[in-house]
């Protein structure tokens, strides 16, 4: 089984937009991959005129929110950096323990890379404070234009997700049985603090996924 990787289009977001944007993207992806019984829930974004769909599972929501908080704290420590969140779907395979991996092996069959560029636009804030009396704030206009651009990009990303989800279906493993919301095991990984560690992470994942030739 090959692992499909999807690199989503990079989004330039401001700090306060991260939460909403990430929630939107992550939930959308999961919705298309949570193939168990689902009662969809429409969620409107506050910052943008976008509606996305959630699985309606409280647990899932909590989990995703947690991860988003981790990410935000990481971004605060590393401002003005391009960051990536990886949402991976894996299959749990019990393999014989080897010195590479532990008992339970995760077979990643799909990975989504959400690329964010968190920008801190301090300029806008300052201009606002200075021109408080000005009716038409140049900073405001800029912000509005930027907001519209982000919204358009977000929509594009959502379209991208839907497209990818539809195009590549063969690799999706069979749906596990069960009641309630059943979705494939997945994890959200955030780049660790150092680049080297991040690289290490990638290697680790590669090993876990397993080279196609290694699989029988």
């Amino acid at each position, binding site marked *: 089984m090959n692992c499909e990787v999807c690199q989503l289009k990079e989004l330039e977001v401001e700090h306060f937009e991260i939460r909403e944007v990430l929630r939107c993207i992550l939930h959308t992806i999961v919705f298309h991959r949570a193939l168990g019984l689902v009662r*969809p*829930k429409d969620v409107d974004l506050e910052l943008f005129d976008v509606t996305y769909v959630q699985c309606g599972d409280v647990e899932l929501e909590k989990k995703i929110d947690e991860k988003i908080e981790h990410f935000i704290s990481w971004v605060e420590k590393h401002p003005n950096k391009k960051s990536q969140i990886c949402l991976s779907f894996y299959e749990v395979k019990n393999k014989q323990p080897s010195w590479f991996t532990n008992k339970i092996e995760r077979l990643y069959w799909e990975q989504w890379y959400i690329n964010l560029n968190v920008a801190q636009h301090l300029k806008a804030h300052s201009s606002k404070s200075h021109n408080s009396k000005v009716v038409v704030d140049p900073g405001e206009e800029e912000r509005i234009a930027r907001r519209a651009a982000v919204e358009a990009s977000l929509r594009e990303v959502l379209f991208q997700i839907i497209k990818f989800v539809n195009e590549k279906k063969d690799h999706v493993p069979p749906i596990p049985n069960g009641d309630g919301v059943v979705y494939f095991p997945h994890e959200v990984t955030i780049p660790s603090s150092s680049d080297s560690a991040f690289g290490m992470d990638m290697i680790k994942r590669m090993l876990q996924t397993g080279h196609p030739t290694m699989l029988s």
Partner: protein
Amino acid sequence: MDLQSNLQPESGKLEQIVSQFLLKSLHIILDSRVPSLRPHDRSGDLSLGSQVRKSDKWFNLVLGDRPAALDNLNFWHRNVMDPMIIDVILVHQGSNSPSMAVGGSVETVIERWVVQYEYPRVVAAQPSESSAYYKKTYKKSIILLRALYSQMRLLPAYRIFRQLSTSSRTYNFDIIYKVSSFSDPFSRAEEGMMEEHSFPAVEAYPGRLCISVTYRTTLSDFNLEPSTSMPPKIITDYVGSPNTDPLRSLPSSGKGVSATSFTLRGVQAPAPVPSQRPHSWTSGFHRAAFSAQNQPFVGSPPAYYPSPMPYDYPSPPAYYPSSMPYDYPSPPTDIHGNRVQHYRAPTHQKAISHDDYQLSPPFSPSPSPSSPSYISNAYPMQTRVRSETAPVSIPLPMTSRSFRHLSPNSSDPNRSSLPPLSPRSRRTDPSSQESPSGITYFRKIESLRSGEMQPVTANHYTGQKVTRDSKDDSGRFSGLLSSSGSPRIGFSRSSSRLSFQDEFDDIDFSYPFDVDDVDTSDFHASVNIWVYSQNLDGKKASEFTSQSLPIGRKSQDAAVGELVRMLRTAPPLRQDPSCYSSHSMKTELEGGVATASGFFMPRKAVDALEELRSFRDMKDLLLSKSGRVISKEEA
């Protein structure tokens, strides 16, 4: 039903999958596009713990109650091989042509979804493991439907669907749908505005399941706005219609009347109001709906606020609170508004419109279209005018006032449909209005003979019962006399009378009997002559008075002349040599006003004369009373 546990043969499986797929996709589309089918807002219904119908579990997508329309689908969509074409249609007003006929709603297909099971010409080899194959097919169709569900929320039509379904307001558009197995192709123009998107098909041997959509990329072409409900506002042109005062020539009465309909609607249609449909409630409504879409509403008063007649007639917007002296009570508007709540209910308006179109007048005389900005100026204008009333010649303010007063009266037949305007609002400023309006009012009464004017007059001139009675009588003249005469003679039965006199003092009193511009001009001549006659010669005065008659309208002239004669021939109220006024009065009466300054003096002298007379009368009365008292005391 879990397909994995399905024991039906493969063909049955396929048909089941396909038919359920069609149903599910229809359910998704209708749920996301047609607000009327949605039983409730589903966002709160999250828990899967609640009983989920088995039929709803198909494709692991629980959507809730299936609309009844879906149940009908089974009846007509017999052949699963037929494509299912779902048209999402937007019902809206023809935004391009405001002058469209009434009730013109246009249906435009904004989305066309085609869900079908494509059967290929050449059938490929059957897959070996059909059950596993169909499991896969089922799984893929789940994903496809999820994608469809998400996509529905990303297309432009979703926004207007949300507007309709979540907001409690009414809108001037609606979304309906049409399901069929065939459809008319789009015209070239339509196609140019639409984009197509196809979902990757799901292999379902021997064919495949396909969903594609042709959708309008933008819906901003349509002016989709909330329909403004009847606001308790507007009816700016409440005062007098052209018909209420036939004597008054209005530039275009038709326009004025039709403006009201727009007023009620809360919006104003632009000038294209046909003059032959003065009342066009319905058209107004519809047109108003258009214009609402087309024109941003300028303030709350209708954009059609009429530039007052040539004589600057500031009729106040109805919604202004009583701070305005001329404000019109909102109730009529409200009531009318309630009646004409929705633009789709033209019956009320039609009824009204078919009434004598004079009736729409309660809302407006707006004879001439004016720019929207005019309305916002109306109020300040009015105040300005009012303040200027004193120094400015009478006709202007009086005219306006008269119209204002008349408006409720004129709308007799309308009254049935609308509550009578409470003239109390006008009472708020009696001093500035009542005296001249009283006179003008009666003049109007004469012309209109509206029985309803009684209450109005009563409100205005509390003490002037005489007037009313006289008004009721056929004797216009007598009515006029009593109304106008009372302040003159000083039979102040109420404080308002005194205020009249004050008012007269303030106002340029040259045209005491003036009603409106048209008449004013006439009276101007007549009064001038009269005054002048006084100057010249007392004897000649009477002649001139009589001569004044033919100049203006006969009724007015006759009344004036009679009054003048009465005043002249009235004996001095008190033979008191100490009272200079009597002397002067006599002199003035007989010899005309002693004036050397010329034209303006005589008027003032007359004014003073009248005042003196009234005061003398009062004094007389008081003295007589006191005399009795004294005599009593003495006795």
